[in-house]
């Protein structure tokens, strides 16, 4: 249902490829698709308009007309511009010369301010600050308790003199908290405020009063990554009502494309400083403009995928499992079961797939992919004897019937699994010869080049990170089975072409045939 920019542009470009030169009409067509993609990523309309106009202007320039592949050059421009806007003048928290530094949080109801207050406090504590959390959300039932619990979990102090639930004056609490912090030697004060709507004049005025009472060094606008077109109105209202110095994007661990990041940045000119990526206190990070750009454009996100893996298991474990793939005939159903459970731990298979480059065209099929299918397969394998798992060739008719009974599926299902397993074994042999997956023994071509320089921080283009560095020169992409063949630097846009040999349509996903 949701077509991605990759999908759309793949079709636009397929007609352009032969041309090598973009006419105005080509540029218009490309920009139309970019416009839709941005809108579907929830970038606010006025921002989309500005942005696309700007891209169009650049697309008419020399950098494009002289490029080898002009259409891809346009997308590179989009990507660059996005990173530029999202990341321009990033900066760190400003600490006051004379403590305490005062940080005030503001935002809509449910944006995640209270949780963020706790995370920020913990993050500061880890940097040897002594933060004080101040409970100025006296509106929402039990917000005060929630903040107190967060403080306890974060191991920081809280100032909560009023019960809340509609009782108490937040402006006074804010004002008095500063004195309290001074007396108790806190060098940072974080003020949690009630959620409020942009059009609520009274509450916006109250926020302004809190601000005036404490003269914060930083006012942070907290906004949910899932917000849609209203981002503009709301950001503007908070800008006018209280003003803010930086933005925090929350709930980025979901699958919203997060166009709001671009909207808020563009409308207010304020930098996005932090990203909140989960419910746990440590799920808090500096904001990465490059990743956000890739996410908004939905071009596959290998780095996020890898990070998800990193969070789930250690590198040795991952490398060991990947290594099994290269072993071809030695690859057993046990190995597969283990791998499957591993992948399952990383999250819904659909999401993982969505992060892989080139999967855009598979969107419809992807929508039908279901984790329960994996569970069924696991059940089948679990019903096999150890002998059968390591030597699937011995699984004859009667064994199949037994396995089917044991796992509550039909014999056909067992048959299919066994057949596919042999196919996969074959494919793995090809894979391990043809391509380089770093960390996967057997990738002949890559053994030399795979190791990225030690200690290099992986930032910037995720596809460049740790992937084969060899450009098209010795044509790895032409290698049969080169499933990551096109993930080479300088060949933007990533994910726009299916890596040759990595043809997901051969995968026989549900919904095909």
């Amino acid at each position, binding site marked *: 249902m949701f077509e991605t920019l990759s999908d759309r542009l793949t079709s636009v470009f397929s007609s352009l490829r032969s041309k090598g030169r973009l006419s105005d009409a080509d540029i218009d067509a490309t920009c139309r698709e970019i416009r839709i993609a941005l809108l579907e990523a929830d970038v606010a309309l006025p921002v989309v308009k500005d942005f696309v106009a700007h891209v169009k202007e650049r697309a008419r320039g020399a950098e494009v007309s002289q490029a080898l592949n002009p259409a891809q050059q346009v997308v590179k421009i989009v990507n660059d511009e996005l990173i530029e806007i999202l990341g321009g003048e990033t900066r760190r928290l400003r600490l006051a010369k004379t403590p305490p530094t005062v940080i005030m949080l503001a935002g809509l109801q449910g944006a995640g301010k209270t949780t963020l207050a706790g995370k920020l406090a913990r993050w500061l504590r880890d940097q040897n600050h002594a933060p004080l959390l101040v409970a100025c959300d006296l509106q929402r039932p039990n917000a005060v308790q929630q903040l107190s619990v967060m403080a306890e*979990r974060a191991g920081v102090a809280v100032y909560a003199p009023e019960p809340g639930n509609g009782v108490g004056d937040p402006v006074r609490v804010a004002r008095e908290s500063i004195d309290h912090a001074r007396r108790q030697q806190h060098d940072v004060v974080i003020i949690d405020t009630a959620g409020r709507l942009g059009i609520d004049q009274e509450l916006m005025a109250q926020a302004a009063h809190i601000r005036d009472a404490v003269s914060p060094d930083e006012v942070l606008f907290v906004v949910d990554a899932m917000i849609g077109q209203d981002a503009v109105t709301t950001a503007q209202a908070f800008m006018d009502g209280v003003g803010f110095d930086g933005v925090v994007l929350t709930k980025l661990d979901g699958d919203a494309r997060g166009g709001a990041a671009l909207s808020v940045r563009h409308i207010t000119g304020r930098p996005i400083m932090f990203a909140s990526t989960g419910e746990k206190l440590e799920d808090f990070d500096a904001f990465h403009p490059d990743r956000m750009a890739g996410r908004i454009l939905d071009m596959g996100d290998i780095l996020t995928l890898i990070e998800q893996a990193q969070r789930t298991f250690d590198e040795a474990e991952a490398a060991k499992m990947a290594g099994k793939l290269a072993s071809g005939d030695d690859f057993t159903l046990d190995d597969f079961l283990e791998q499957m459970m591993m992948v399952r731990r990383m999250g819904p298979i659909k999401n993982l797939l969505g992060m892989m480059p080139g999967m855009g065209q598979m969107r419809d099929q992807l929508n039908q992919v279901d984790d329960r299918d994996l569970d069924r*397969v696991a059940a089948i394998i679990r019903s096999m004897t150890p002998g059968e798992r390591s030597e699937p060739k011995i699984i004859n008719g009667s064994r199949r019937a037994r396995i089917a009974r044991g796992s509550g*599926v039909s014999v056909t299902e067992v048959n299919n699994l066994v057949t596919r397993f042999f196919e996969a074994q074959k494919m793995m042999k090809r894979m391990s010869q043809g391509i380089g997956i770093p960390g996967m023994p057997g990738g002949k071509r890559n053994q030399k080049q795979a190791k990225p320089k030690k200690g290099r921080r992986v930032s910037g283009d995720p596809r460049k*990170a740790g*992937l084969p560095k060899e450009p098209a020169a010795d044509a790895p992409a032409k290698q049969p089975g080169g499933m990551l063949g096109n993930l080479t630097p300088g060949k933007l846009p990533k994910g726009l072409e299916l890596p040759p040999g990595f043809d997901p349509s051969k995968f026989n996903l549900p919904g095909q045939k």
Partner: protein
Amino acid sequence: MDGYIGIIAIIIVVILLGIGTTALLVRPRSKTTLPPPPAPTPQAPAPPVEEEVVETVAPPAVPVEELVKPPEVEVPPPSAGRMVRLRARLARSQTTLGRGLLELLSRDRLDDDVWDEIEETLITADVGVAPTRAMVEDLKTKVKVLGSRTPSEVRALLRAELLTQIDPGLDRTLHTSAPGERPAVLLVVGVNGTGKTTTTGKLARSLIGDGKTVVLGAADTFRAAAADQLQTWGDRVGAPVVRGPEAGDPASVAFDAVARGIADKADVVIVDTAGRLHTKTGLMDELGKVKRVIEKKAQVDEVLLVLDATTGQNGMRQAQVFGEVVNITGIALTKLDGTAKGGIVISVQRELGVPVKLVGLGEGPDDLAPFDPEVFVDALLGD
């Protein structure tokens, strides 16, 4: 880092082998026929334990509980006619949409620029690109058929179009009475911060106002003070709240709440759940379990997905995934008192057939109303 890149290959193999297998088979639509999933038991995420010494200052002495006056139980007003009463609030924030469209459609010349503006008005309401285009095409045809365009004709045309989009034909009754003796069971679900607890509280209040007895289940055992938040709502209207230990098993709290409802011969049991992003398999499995465990005791009559009106296109994904896991039967669209238009529900209703049943129009205890398409559209268009 390198080691992880092999993950990509692993995923491909898992898909190939795992999903490919069942592709050729009839996919079981009914969830009941599935073999028991090999139990990767979703651990309810435990709050991080802090070993370190808590820093200097203790929270200023006054324990919060002591300050709270014993709540007086209020008698809430009945729910009838609420949407009409809240119409003014809706109009305050929402008329720009309806009025804008009206003004555009009434222009003397409807050239491409005007149609573009109409399209943009809809997109700005989070209706989404494809549904917007469909709607614009529809309007174009209707305008052509209409020929002349007097103000009242344009208004009627737009009203009809908006109503079609919202689909007045859907059954929007909230299932708050169960056949036989047992109480009706409502489960409230959604992503974090959309207004689940508030909606649960408001709904309890409105049901009590209509003369029903209500038991609340605080199955959000995860977020700090979430059960207290629900308790505050319950105390205000005199609805008992069944709660469990913090970080305890939400399914057993839900079960206990329903058991209590049955024992008390209550009319309705509403179970509030923890916010969870639909992308977290573990938490979604947990939610599925909450529902299955309740079903050991009583049928779940209504599963309400709470959607925040500010949500953009991601709302569709939320509805899809929650629908798959717990089969949502209705939507509560909250925060419509803000400037967000909640246009995403148009797609959600159309694609999934799940109707909006309730709307949240503020933080006040009575700011919840049954959704009435006609009143809603009239509020959009203003007087």
